[in-house]
């Protein structure tokens, strides 16, 4: 487990370093390539860590909050990297790597590799459920960043101030599309993820749903993204309103994933 911890820590250092380089890139437009390479190195170290954990424990690293968080970091980093590779847009890497570093730090501080897995969680259905949820959250996180950028840039353009964001960020339309795409993909995964969760609950607890704090927050979350998706698909909402919904939705994700899980009493393990 020592190696896993070392790798866990090593990936955090690399994420922090890539954050510094993305920051430098954002301000000066220099060394963008280095930033990307460091991020890639961080993701590689992180992947090795996750694979090693899985090999040693013979379960996916999803069984406790800290491990799910680090898996989320890995997924989010990967999504961003794919986005950067495909769209050649690395201006908001600084925000992504900031989130990666924060969540990874929380994960390292709270992780306990040796804690045994609760019995009810020891089935494939549970792993599929968590995987889908994390996938959805990583997608929402990317959408959140895009939406946040959209709102900042929008304010700058409309307020007729041509500042740093104006000179650095891609176009509004690009950010809008990225947000919508990420949120719609995330919504699909969230829906499936909740579905698997309910099946799990049916087996473990004997009932599919309970208005427990965690489950309630997740439900609200789903409704927000659903509203966003429907309003876009049916009413062609986009831009400012969609972005605000996406930001709200992701704040709820953070609330449910970090706050409710750790501080409210809930029957849901994490």
């Amino acid at each position, binding site marked *: 487990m020592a190696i896993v911890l070392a790798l866990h820590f090593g990936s955090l250092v690399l994420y922090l370093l890539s954050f510094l380089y993305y920051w430098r890139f954002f301000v000066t437009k220099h060394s963008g390539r280095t930033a990307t390479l460091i991020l890639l190195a961080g993701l590689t170290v992180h992947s090795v860590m996750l694979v090693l954990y899985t090999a040693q424990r013979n379960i996916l690293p999803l069984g406790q909050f800290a491990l799910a968080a680090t898996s989320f970091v890995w997924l989010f980093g990967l999504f961003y990297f794919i986005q950067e590779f495909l769209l050649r847009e690395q201006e908001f890497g600084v925000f992504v790597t900031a989130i990666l570093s924060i969540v990874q730090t929380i994960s390292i501080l709270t992780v306990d590799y040796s804690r045994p897995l609760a019995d009810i969680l020891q089935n494939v259905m549970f792993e599929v459920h968590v995987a889908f949820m994390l996938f959805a959250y990583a997608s929402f996180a990317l959408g959140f960043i895009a939406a946040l950028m959209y709102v900042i840039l929008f304010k700058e*353009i409309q307020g007729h101030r041509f500042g740093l964001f104006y000179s650095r960020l891609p*176009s509004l339309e690009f950010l809008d599309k990225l947000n919508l795409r990420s949120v719609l993909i995330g919504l699909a995964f969230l829906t499936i993820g909740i579905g698997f969760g309910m099946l799990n609950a049916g087996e473990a607890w004997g009932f599919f749903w309970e208005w427990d704090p965690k489950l309630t927050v997740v439900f609200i979350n789903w409704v927000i993204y659903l509203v966003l998706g429907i309003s876009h698909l049916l009413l062609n909402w986009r831009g400012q309103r969609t972005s605000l919904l996406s930001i709200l939705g992701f704040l709820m994700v953070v609330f449910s994933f970090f706050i409710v899980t750790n501080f409210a009493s809930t029957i849901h393990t994490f």
Partner: protein
Amino acid sequence: MQLTAIRLPSEQSVDFPRLLDRLNSVMQECSIEEACALRYWEWISIYLAGEQSDDMDCVQTYLRVRNVDILSSQKDRQAVRQFYKEYLGEESPFIGEPSVQAKAQGDFRRSMQNGLTGAVLRHLKKTADQLGETFGSVEEFRAHAMSPEALSGELAGKIMEDVSDAVITVIGTSDPLEHFLEYWSRQHVGRLYFCHPEFEAAEQQCLAFDALPIRQEEVGEALSQSDIIIVASGAEQRLAPSQTAILESIQKQRKKHQLIYNWGNLPEISAVFSRSSSIFVYNREELEEALVQARKKRQRILDRFQPRINEQVEEFFDWLYSDQRYRFHGIVGKSHQMQQVFELVERVAETDITVLIQGETGTGKELVARAIHETSQRKDGPFVTINCGAIPETLLEGELFGHEKGAFTGATSARKGLLKEAAGGTVFLDEIGDTTQMFQVKLLRALQEREVTPLGSSIPEAIDVRIIAATSKQLQEEVERGTFRSDLYYRINVVRIALPPLRERKEDILPLINHFLQKYNTKMGKQVEVISKEAAEALMAYEWKGNIRELENIMERAIALSVDHRINRDDLPVSVFQQTEPISQESTQEVRTLEEVERQYIHQLLQQSEGNYSEVAEKLGIGRTTLWRKMKKYGLEQEEN
């Protein structure tokens, strides 16, 4: 050497060719050696280089007499700095944009083609180009939009991801209307509408910019489809109330982003399109403010480059005050004939064109050929010299075209041939006039087909060389006499560089003497620094049948013989003095003073040249001002005028 920059109002640039002509006559009048004109943003700048500072005053007087306003006038360092700044577009709103530099290059080229420029201005331009490369690589220069049209493009780019199917409507009647149309037609947008109160005028403009003209009454409709609306100045035309209604209704349904660039401050536009979440309206003041900010930002970047410019100015003056400026790839030449040769070399080097160099023995034909090679793209390839006059014909053929093993007695192994071996480089054929007709036929074939057939082989092989030929004969005469084939002559005489004999460019003698002093001092480890006045005069008066090679030999000998640190009369061979002919044959009997001789000689030359002072001054190896002074002294100027 004095440099002056004079700024004239931009009206002068309306007829640019005429301005260049006038510049030419100014140069004649005021004995300016070099000039060029650059059209620039709000003015036109002329740059002058001449020996004396009073020549520059002459130019200013010339312009004032002709009622040309002079906006400003700078000298020396200031003038050079101004040249760099204008060449790079520093004071224009478009600094750093490649188009500015391209325009300056174009204008300079025109001055060059009109024969106004010389070594000094050409070097100035070359260094400005180098600076431009440094500047051009700085992306930050292009990071900010500097003009209204570029700002509209930048804003559109920040709002829309791409404009390739955007609909643009431009309305207005005056500046910067054309800039907007030109800018947006270059962006290849989906559709570009243009509305002008007079439909015919709109149609006219649209032809040039690939836009669709629309009538006044269609404006509302066009605006409703548009993603970008650009209101240029002079759009004081009012929209009809019904159109305003259309705009209002679209404004409500519109879901896509829309940019309204209200440069002309059309009141209805800003009234109707209040700030909604998808429509961005900009009025004139806001846009101007943005442009001012952008200019400030650019200025900050530019300030970082000031030291580099100043450094370049100093480097330029270092070059100007050294004899470097009379050198070109190891060739020394101050005379305008040689400067023209240098210019020609630079121009022919750009292409692979065949060049014929004609010049007496010892005029440096091989050096010129080498200079062409070194200036050209092929400079990393081999440079092969072959003296056609020195090798028997059969050997020459084998040497050039190659041969198979056993092609002739003694051909014990196969040979590739120089034309083949020098692939990617240059072959210099010296004394081409000494070849036989048979050889000329084969050479012509090789040049024509760009392939050679080695002796004893039947398979032609492609060659990739540039040919430079040289001769000391008058090939035209050889052709008439039938000793040189006319077809080959026309094939190699595409560009001819004629090297003038040394006696026709006496002002090159002193720089050459200095050059050889340096060369042989280093070679022989001597420290001969000066040449005595008498010795120099003798060398100036000598006929130089053997041209520079002869001068070099005499200098080598003189340096070797010199005992103190100077070259005296005694160090020169006797022949130099014997050959010096009396200045005028008629007056050998009577003894005259030096002044009389001088007066008569100048008079004679002036008559020969029909009053061309530059020519006379060059022949005498003195500056034009000196000539002028002497003419005054001997009362020759009244006669001339």
